[in-house]
């Protein structure tokens, strides 16, 4: 498997890019220490000569110079590079958690529905239908404050981890149905194949059939869906933060950088540039990586 994957150059490059992003997120504190800035200090307001009277960077290209590599944020005057690094950290953490939760739920429910059939299948199938009928974006916007309010009194200030958990929970709740449906259908067709019967004949237990015979045949859809889902969750989370229901100030967030960028792009286009390019590169690389992994897992493709 690994040998086949290594021969795929696109896959290797994309894997490198994706790993690079995860490394950036993980090492954000280290990098910002080396770089000597943090995402919370309002450099532009503390130091004169960085922002003009309207709050925009004085230097061209969003204030890029030897000290602020990616420029500084208009109005508040924070450092863009560290903000982006910490933003990537927040967004990837949330997206990864949502993906793991979603995939696990989908595997358990999808395989159970397909393999057990009967009432279980009926129950899970109708639940999926019901949840699919929800308008996801509207639901997120409407219910995030509700979920947060369940844990924290609206009078108090919401701790960051509650917001993170709420974001994960809400996206997970409406995220697992697609994959579960695909897996159910796959299991339905696999279940009737003769190799499952052959395994039963040699005395294999249902558990063994599921994890030795069915799951290896489901790796492809699971991986492909998971690698499509993760960038989706990154953009969804960014979208929610953009709309103001995701992470709030001062927690750095990838998506909220677009919100600010959208406000100021007429006067400071550069601020949008780095988060935007980073997101496009990340999502394209991740999607291509998904394709390559699928090819590597399928022994029938020739490479």
């Amino acid at each position, binding site marked *: 498997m690994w040998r086949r994957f290594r021969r795929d150059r696109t896959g290797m490059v994309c894997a490198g890019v994706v790993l690079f992003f995860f490394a950036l997120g993980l090492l954000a504190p280290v990098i910002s220490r080396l770089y000597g800035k943090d995402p919370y200090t309002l450099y532009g307001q503390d130091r004169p000569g960085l922002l003009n009277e309207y709050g925009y960077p004085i230097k061209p290209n969003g204030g890029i110079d030897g000290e602020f590599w990616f420029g500084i944020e208009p109005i508040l005057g924070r450092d863009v590079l560290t903000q982006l690094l910490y933003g990537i950290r927040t967004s990837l953490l949330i997206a990864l958690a949502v993906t793991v939760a979603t995939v696990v739920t989908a595997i358990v429910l999808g395989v159970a529905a397909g393999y*057990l*059939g*009967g009432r279980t299948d009926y129950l899970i199938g109708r639940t999926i239908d019901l949840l699919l009928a929800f308008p996801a974006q509207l639901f997120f916007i409407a219910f995030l404050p509700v979920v947060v309010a369940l844990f924290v009194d609206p009078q108090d200030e919401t701790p960051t981890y509650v917001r993170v958990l709420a974001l994960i929970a809400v996206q997970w709740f409406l995220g697992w149905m697609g994959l579960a449906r695909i897996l159910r259908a796959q299991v339905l067709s696999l279940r009737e*194949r*003769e*190799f499952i*019967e*052959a*395994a*039963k*004949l*040699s*005395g*294999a*237990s*249902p558990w*063994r059939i599921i994890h*030795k*015979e069915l799951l*290896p*045949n489901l*790796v492809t859809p699971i991986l492909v869906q998971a690698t499509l889902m993760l960038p989706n969750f990154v953009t969804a989370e960014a979208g929610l933060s953009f709309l103001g229901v995701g992470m709030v100030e001062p927690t750095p967030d990838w998506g909220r950088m677009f919100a600010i960028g959208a406000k100021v792009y007429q006067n400071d286009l550069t601020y949008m540039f780095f988060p935007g390019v980073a997101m496009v590169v990340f999502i394209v690389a991740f999607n291509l990586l998904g394709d390559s992994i699928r090819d590597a897992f399928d*022994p*029938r493709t020739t490479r």
Partner: protein
Amino acid sequence: MPENPQPTAADSGAGAPDDVARVEAVMAEPVSRGEPILSVRNLVKHFPLTQGIVFRRQVGAVRAVDGVSFDLHQGETLGIVGESGCGKSTVAKLLMNLERPTAGEVLYKGEDITRLSGRALKAVRRNIQMVFQDPYTSLNPRMTVGDIIGEPFDIHPDVAPRGDRRRKVQELLDVVGLNPEYINRYPHQFSGGQRQRIGIARGLALNPEIIICDEPVSALDVSVQAQVINLMEKLQDEFNLSYMFIAHDLSVVRHISDRVAVMYLGKVVEVGTDQEIYEHPTHPYTQALLSAVPVPDPSGRDQRERIVLTGDVPSPANPPSGCRFRTRCWKAEERCAAEIPLLAVPERFKDSDTPAAHESACHFAEEKDVVHA
């Protein structure tokens, strides 16, 4: 709604321990001469037909197998022939306990295996294995050949100790005529015939006594069919196997079988040695089947009398009364609609010593040599 024929962990607990001990004792016994190793008594399988989505109710049943009985002796090959949908494959599934029969019993060395579950069933399955019809779906595409053939060893660790498995798998590959070095290849790297050999190797892994072959060659090219059949015959001699060979190709069945049973619409209509069935058929359905066998020699093809049946096979959900073949039989009379003919040696041949004196379920059984006519 699909049923789940596999017993769940829950029902394997009940009464298992002494069952297991008894079954294992039965297993160890050699079969005495003349005793059948497997006998099937009045096997019935009805699949319920249901209507409605929320409130299901049964509106009828497909009588896939309706009272089938036969014996299989050690080292013998019993062929089962019949057209599509006559219940051949259902019989195989019932014998393998992949489906639970509606009624009847399957006696393996005198032990009714349809009632077993859990560990006792697992012990029986070691001795009864199966070769599947389609070598393209019967091998897991994600497993290497070594994993596929070695899987039974994983499930029954007592057959081969862990360190010995690789060597055992290679031996099996060698036995079925494949290069032992193919052990790390995937099924898609093999041709249909090679895949079927892999399927046979897996069937042999647990040293079974009986192998049920559900149309093992019908998915293969004719040239490859012969190789696989010859391999199976060789293995039968080598390991003293009993085969139950299900097929719709009459010449293949004749080649490999010692005895042949002909099925029509869920019932056995005629049983006998291959000589008796092919040279001296007494049931009109067998005669019609045989007359449809293509003859390689073109001369005399025109003179050959062919029995052409009209109409379709009736629906097994609503089979005809009396003799099931009467709707398409040229001999049918009123008696056929009223009385179900029993599978027995016909009255007129009872005392004679002719090969026609074998079991046939027809009121008007008479000999007719259709192959040479």
